[in-house]
Structures are given as structure tokens and as C-alpha cells.
């Protein structure tokens, strides 16, 4: 009687323990890669892949100023081959499951990414949630130049850096999966966060000059006047046409794009005082509701109607004029409307010139077609550059900050 039970248990345990999953790997036997950079290699048809590998921070073993990551670069024909080569240079087994960012050099991005994007997507170890960055120079220089000034690790740095993008709307985060979806879409083009290292000299490079009534210029990464701290900058957006990068949007343009995507959480706007143009006014803006976008086919070109509700709070009034009063408030709202309208029109015009529908207006034109086949027939990406754009911006200043009345400084 017991022999059957015993035999059963023996067979079961043998089955489990001998044929069990042998993919187990102790946590200290694995090299955790936190960032991958991809550049064009010097050799023809090869890519240079840079791996940023985290060093487990053993207490007391870390010297002063010592980095907690190691940069390893190798050149290979494909990204998977590069992984094989990496295995030959590190004692630990490289693991991609903790990659936070994928940095692509601008040169390679402009040539096209389609070749290796598929292999990144297909292999299970790469996370769909890693963020995509385009570096103005090379990805290796960017990863090398990254010296987080606060005491946080490289992986934490990328996570918090990309999370905090919503605070100003000057750069947008995009995950690998989102990028991939847009790469395959016939209604929108992909975009990626634009990054660069600055030389910390404090000089500035304006990408898009300020519009009438505004006080702020648009920068792209590398152009922000910066001194001290971590030299790397996240600013602007790299926009793509298909898998090829075609240009960049500046910080102010990126903010308008965020409004159109419905991602705009929060951001200051500095503009001219409508009654005292030498002085400025600061308003903190956020989206009041999701943007209302309608795209119609139109007679000769598609017509895009955009309606955006902004809600604001006054944060600074140096002129001392009582904009808090009901009679003055519309003036202020008018000023915001005018600045945003102009910036948004410029931004859309810029993308039309580059033939890159990064906002994804293509999704909104779909209701115009009776079936999907008809839509496929329609050359949306060509038509987009000719589209007519009507923008209505409605601003409501809801709060006046912590002061209810202004007196001029005497």
C-alpha cells in the first residue's frame, strides 16, 4: 500500500527536481545593465553599442567620487551580436531586464532605426517600459558625461529625471513600446526625448525665438545656458518621419505638443504685461480639460480644428496693476491666449514643414472614412503638411496666488 505512495512521491520529486526549470541565477551572478547607448560605428554598416552596467554598491567599498556604474562599448553588426561580445568581456551574465533608457545617437537616428528596433522588441529581456532618448552627439558621450550631482544611482537618476518632465513640459518621456507603436502606425510619427551634454560655459543657443507677447525663448538640449551641476540636459523633442529622425522641437514647442497630447500637467508662462509691456507677468498654467481636436477632410486640404482649455494661477505681477480685478482679468487671459496660439501655430507649422505628424492628428481623421481600407488609401502623411489649422485657446485664470490684491512697489 505504502509502496505505491512512496513510488509516486519519488517519481514526482524526481520529475520536479531533475527536469525543473534551470534558469535560476543568483542575483549576484548577473550584471544589471541600466542603460544602453547605440551609435554608428566608425566601420561601415556596424553599430557601436554602449552598456552602462550597475555595480552593486557594497557598503564601504565605494571610494570618493567613484562611479557606481561601468561603461562598456563594443562594435558589432547587430545588437544581439553585440550582446554576445559583451558576454566575452564581463564575468557576470548580462541581463537586460533592468534597462531604464535606450539612448540613440543623432547620426544613427537620422539614418533610421528600423533595422534593430525589431530585435529589441522581440527579445523578452528588453523591457517595453524603457525610455527612448536621442542624444545630440553620440550616445556613448552622453552616458559618459552623465554625472548625477545628487547621491542617487544611475538607474534612479533616469527614472526620476524622466518622471519630473511633467513639471514644466519642456521634455516628454516616451517609452520604447510607445515609440514602437508609433513606428508601425499610419496615423502618427514617433518622437523621443532629446538630450545632450553641455560644456557648462553658460552660453546659450536659441532654437526658436520668442513670439510676440512672450518673454521666453525655446531651447533644445545643449543650448540651455548652464553652469555647474550635471552637464547633461533633457530638453526638446526629437521628431521622426518613419524611422528616421527629421528634426527637433524646442522646449516651448514641446510644451505646445504636450498640450495637444493632453500631457501638459503644469508649467510657468512668462509674458509681457499687456498694460506695461516692459514688465512681465508669470502665470502657472495647466490643461483644464483634454484637448478637443477635430480633423475634417476639407475641400482641397484637411482642416484641423483645435480647442484647448487652459487654467491658470497668477504667480507674479511686478507691474503692480490689479489684474485680480474682474475688469482686468480678461486682458490677462487674452494675453495668454495670444501667446499660446502663436506658439502652437508655429509648432504645428514646424512639424508640417518636416512632414512629421508627431501629435497624431491622423488618429482624429479616421472618423471621416467609412472603413479602414478607405483610410489606408488616403495619403495622410502627405496631406498633413498641407493641412489648414484653426486654433482656439481659452484661458481661465482661476486663482490669484496667495495675494488677492496688488500694490505697486514704492
Amino acid at each position, binding site marked *: 500500500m505504502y509502496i505505491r505512495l512512496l513510488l509516486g512521491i519519488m517519481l514526482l520529486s524526481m520529475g520536479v527536481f531533475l527536469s525543473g*526549470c534551470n534558469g535560476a541565477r543568483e542575483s549576484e551572478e548577473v550584471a544589471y545593465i541600466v542603460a544602453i547607448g547605440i551609435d554608428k560605428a566608425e566601420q561601415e554598416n556596424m553599430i557601436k553599442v554602449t552598456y552602462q552596467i550597475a555595480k552593486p554598491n557594497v557598503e564601504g567599498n565605494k571610494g570618493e567620487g567613484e562611479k557606481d556604474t561601468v561603461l562598456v562599448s563594443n562594435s558589432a553588426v547587430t545588437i544581439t551580436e553585440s550582446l554576445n561580445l559583451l558576454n566575452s568581456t564581463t564575468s557576470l551574465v548580462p541581463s537586460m531586464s533592468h534597462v531604464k533608457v535606450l539612448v540613440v545617437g543623432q547620426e544613427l537616428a537620422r539614418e533610421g532605426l528600423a533595422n534593430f528596433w525589431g530585435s529589441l522588441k522581440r527579445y523578452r529581456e528588453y523591457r517595453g517600459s524603457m525610455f527612448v532618448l536621442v542624444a545630440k552627439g553620440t550616445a556613448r558621450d552622453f552616458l559618459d558625461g552623465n554625472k548625477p550631482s545628487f547621491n542617487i544611482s544611475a538607474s534612479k537618476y533616469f527614472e526620476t529625471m524622466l518622471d519630473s518632465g511633467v513639471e514644466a513640459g519642456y521634455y516628454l518621456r516616451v517609452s520604447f513600446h510607445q515609440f514602437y507603436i508609433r513606428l508601425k502606425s499610419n496615423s502618427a510619427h514617433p518622437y523621443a526625448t532629446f538630450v545632450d551634454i553641455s560644456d557648462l560655459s553658460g552660453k546659450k543657443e536659441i532654437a526658436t525665438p520668442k513670439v510676440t507677447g512672450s518673454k521666453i525663448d525655446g531651447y533644445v538640449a545643449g543650448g540651455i545656458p548652464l553652469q555647474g551641476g550635471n552637464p547633461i540636459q533633457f530638453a526638446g523633442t526629437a521628431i521622426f518621419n518613419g524611422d528616421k529622425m527629421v528634426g527637433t522641437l524646442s522646449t516651448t514647442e514641446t510644451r505646445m505638443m504636450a498640450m495637444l497630447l493632453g500631457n501638459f500637467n503644469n508649467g510657468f508662462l512668462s509674458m509681457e504685461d499687456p498694460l506695461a509691456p516692459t514688465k512681465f507677468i508669470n502665470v502657472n498654467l495647466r490643461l483644464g480639460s483634454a484637448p478637443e481636436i477635430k480633423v475634417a477632410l476639407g475641400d482641397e486640404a484637411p482642416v484641423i480644428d483645435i480647442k484647448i482649455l487652459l487654467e491658470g494661477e497668477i504667480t507674479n505681477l511686478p507691474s503692480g496693476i490689479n489684474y485680480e480685478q474682474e475688469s482686468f482679468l480678461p486682458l490677462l487671459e487674452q494675453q495668454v491666449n495670444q501667446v499660446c496660439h502663436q506658439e502652437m501655430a508655429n509648432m504645428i507649422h514646424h512639424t508640417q514643414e518636416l512632414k512629421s505628424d508627431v501629435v497624431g492628428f491622423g488618429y482624429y481623421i479616421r472618423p471621416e472614412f467609412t472603413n479602414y481600407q478607405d483610410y489606408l488609401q488616403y495619403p495622410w502623411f502627405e496631406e498633413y503638411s498641407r493641412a489648414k489649422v484653426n486654433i482656439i485657446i481659452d484661458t481661465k485664470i482661476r486663482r490669484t496666488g496667495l495675494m488677492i490684491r496688488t500694490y505697486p512697489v514704492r
Partner: protein
Amino acid sequence: MKKSTSSNLITAIKDFLVYQPPAQPTPFVLTETQAEKAENEGKFCPSAAVTEGIRELEFMVNYAKKLDAFMKKSSKELRSKEKHEVVKKIKAEFEMIQTEWKEIKKHTIQNHSIDGMYNNAVISTDINENQNILESIYQLPLNKDVVIRNITISDQPKIKVLVIFMDGLIDKKIINMTLLEPLMFMKNIQENVQGEDFISFVMEECLPSGQASRVGSFKEVQQAINTGDAVVFFDGCGEAVAVETKGYEHRSIGNPTTEQSVRGSQNAFTEVLRVNTALVRTMLHASDLVTEMIPIGARGHSNCAVMYIKSITNEELVEEVKRRINGISTDIITDSGVLEHFIEDFPRNPFPQTLSTERPDRVAIHLSEGRVAIFIDGSPFGHILPVSFFTLMHSSDDFSLNLYYTNMLRLVRWLGALLSLLLPSLYLAISTFHQEAIPTELLLSIAAARAQVPFPTIIEILFMEFSFELIREGGLRIPGILGSTIGIVGALILGQTAVTAKIVSPIMVIVIALTGLASYSIPDYRLASAFRLTRFIFVFLAMAMGLIGVACGFLLFIAMLCSLKSFGMPYLAPLAPKTVNGGDTIFRSSSYHQKRRPDTLNSKDDIRQKKPSRSWLTESSKGGKDHE
């Protein structure tokens, strides 16, 4: 001659140098008994029953002699005297001798007891015969615990009386006041009082004792003597009287030690069965609360009390419990846990199928729900049955505290149970198979901590689990108050130094400590140990197959629980199978909302309280109004 001297010398030197075993007395060796030897050799050996048989034969021979004497006497008298009166007298004597024969016949037809303890012997009318049997049973005069007192009562006629009791189990005062004194000062009895009438006369008129009962067989006599009663034999009576004279030392009622509660009653059961049943009765004053006594054990003769409320409890359940207890044949049971193993449905399963409690209030509550409680002499734990898995996760003061607070505590308890079952296996599975599921920072610090540990994670877990169990078991066995101190110090020092010596990683200490702590959040000690046992299976499954293994194991675990039954009641009721929710499963509802008794118990009366259980809410009060 010279040669022999030298050889003598050599022998002397040899004797001096060569090791000689020291002279020792013959050592005592505990060898097998003759019976065992004979059994091993395949021979037949007469057992103790043979001596009983011999006694029986002697008894019969005595009877035959008596019969012979009677016949000779009657024939002589018939010849000599006048017929009428003599025939009457002989007839009476003959009837007496005939009844004696009937008894002997009945007695010889019955199966003989095998242990030589006269379990089937009936009390003889001859007091000397009875004394011989008692001396043989109790190994007198070797055994000093048993006292036999021979007295003579009543002047006309003189009756020989034998009182037997166990010294130490009785109260001497009670024996003197309620037994010896009234018997010795007994008034003369009428001559016509004979046999059975005599016993009832004595019980009615002369024994001022609360409990006195007639006993007819030596089995009953032994049971009475062994539990502290005194037995009185009268010459010429085929029965004896057992008088309650219990008066042994026992532990007084104390506080619960394994089921402490902040609120609720602070009484706990003790080792004496009668005290325990009384404690339940002090909580539950129901007239139809029945306590049935079932003796268990061929040698132990322990009493087992089965308690239930007649008007509520399902009769089939009571019958089944009694049937199972009656079906036990063993020599001795002193602990309720052992009794449980004899009667439960799945004794091989580590999960407890009864609720073991030392709190009378808990027993009372469960009895009122329609469950059965069993107690056994000598054990301070009562067992409540049938129970579900969920009952075991309840604690005694769940209903004394606020509803929401209790439910939060219950949530903590359930999470604790889950942690104690799965935490080490989940840690092992995730840290070796599914590293992507750990936040990068945490993973890096785990890797850093593990970098200098030479063993794989599974060895770390087993090592720490083993040390934890060692501390637990060792701490329990260290005598006296040292236990807890040494346990804590051992745990602290062992944990600290194991980490410093890089034998285990600090995170493993956290995992094991948390698991150990979590296992103590399970209120039932036996349930906690079952969880602790199952945990190791999960660890091995996690080692072999990662999360898949843990998931498969958990599925089997749930299936096992679903198949389990406690005295016919599904273990996971009322969840699987789904029955009417009584309002006290994982979380509890308000006491006044629990209108029905647990559905799965199929009690006779389903309704616990009438529909408006708070009728004062619908009545108007005499006080003022709020807004006045």
C-alpha cells in the same frame, strides 16, 4: 625446577602487563520476556488470562462443593424432619443457589478478558471470594496504595463488610464521616432484609453521601476505585456500593497561557474533567446542555466527556462522535490531542480538524452554535468539532473588540498566515528566477549583500530556517525562565554574527524573521505548525521551478484544503462549498446582525436571534429629544 620458576615469573609479568578486565558484578540486562521469546520461536505460551481461568475453575469447584453439601444436607433433613416447613426452607435455599448458578452461567458464556484483570468477573456473594479477587487485581499486599478495611456492622445478625479505596485519591475526612461512621453506628437491621434489598436499604438509610451507586462487576469496581471512589462489599450480597469520596490534589484554575486575550474571560481549563465541565456550565446555563461520559482505555480507564446542547446540535453528529469514541480500543489516553488522532477523519494531515482550546468561554460559544465539545480526564484542553479552516483563524476576543478593529486584526492575521506560508519561497523564486520583478535599487542592494556570501540562496534559506526552528525548539526546552532570554539572545547574536561572518545576507535575516513572526500571528498553534511544515515544500518547489512551482504548489494546497473534512463538515465551508454566509468567515459582521447559526453545522435550530434583535430601537424612549 629452574625452568618452572622462570616460567612462573614470565606468567607473573604477563599477568601484570596484559590487560585483564576488572572484576564486576553480573550486569543487569533487560531481556525479552518468556512470552516474547516463545512467540518468536513460534511456541504457544499461556497468557495472564490463564490464571484468571484457574481462578474461575476454583470458583466453580467451590460452587460444586457447596451444591454437594446442600444436596447432602437437604436429603438428610428430608429424611429426618417433618416435611412441610423443611420443604419451604429447602426451596428458598435452592432458589438462592439456582440464581447463583445462573450468574455463573452468564459469566462463563461471556468472553474472557485477556489481561487477567477480571474485567468480566461479577461480584460474588462470598466476601472472602471478593477479597481474594481484589487482592489479585491490586497485587496486595505488595501494592501499598490500595487500602482494604474489614469491618463488621450491625449486631443482629453480624455482617462482614469490606471497604476498599485508593489512598491519595480519596479524602480521608469524607471516608470517615460519610462512610465508616454511619456504617459502624448502623442500627440493627430486620432479618427479612436480604440480598438486593439489603443494598438499597443501606444506600437509602445509612450512606449520607452525595453520590452512591450499585456496582455489579469487577470492571466497574476497578473503575470506581481507580478514580477515587470507595467501594463497599457486604457479605452475602452479589453487588457492592461505590461511594463518591474523591479528594485528590489538582492545579487550581489559572489564566489561559496559550490563548491569552486582552479582553474576554481569563479562566482556563485545568486537568480535572469535572472542573472543566463545570467551567463550561458556569458560562452556559442551559438545562439541556448534556455531558455524556464515555470511558476510554483498557488500562487507563480515562473518562471522556462529550458535551452538546440537545436542542441545537445535530443528533447525527453527536451519534457519530460517540460512535467513534466508543470504537477506540487502546490501553491509555491521557491527552486530548491523542484522543483527537484516534477519532479525526484525516489523522495524517497536519491541518487540525478540531479546535483545541483552553478557554471555557470559547467552548460555550461554540456549543451554542451547535458544535460538540470533548474533554478527557487529565488534559486542560477541550476540543471543539467540527470546525472549518476559518474558525481556526479566529481569536477568542474577536467579538469583544470593535467591529472595524477586529476586522483589521483579522486582515493582519490572514496576511501573516500568507506570509508565513509563502514569503521564503516567493523571495527565493523572485530573486533567482524573476529578477525583473524587483525594483532595480533593491535588486542591486540584494546583489551587493549577497556578493560575499558563498552559498546559494536556497542554502541560506534552509540554514536560517533551521536556526530559527532550533531557537524555537531549544528555547522551549530550556528549563524555566532562562528559556525566553536565551532564545532572544541566541536569535540576536546568531542573526547578527551570521550576517557579519557573511554566511547569510542581511535581507535573508529580514525574510526569515518576518516569516517567523508572521507564523505566530496565526491564533491556533497547530495550524501555525501545519503552515510552518508546508512552507518547506513551497521552498523546494520555488527552488526547482520558480514562481510556476509556487503557483502549482498553492493550487495543490488549496485543493488539499478543499478535500479535507472535519467530522463530515467541509474544511473550507462556507466558502467551498458555498453556503449561507453567517457573517463570521474571514471578516465578521456586527453581533446583532448574525441572525443564523453556521449553515454548515445543520443544527436543529437555525435561528440564533429573532429578527429585530434590538427591539429597543423601534420603541420610543422616555428621555428628552436631541434638539430640545
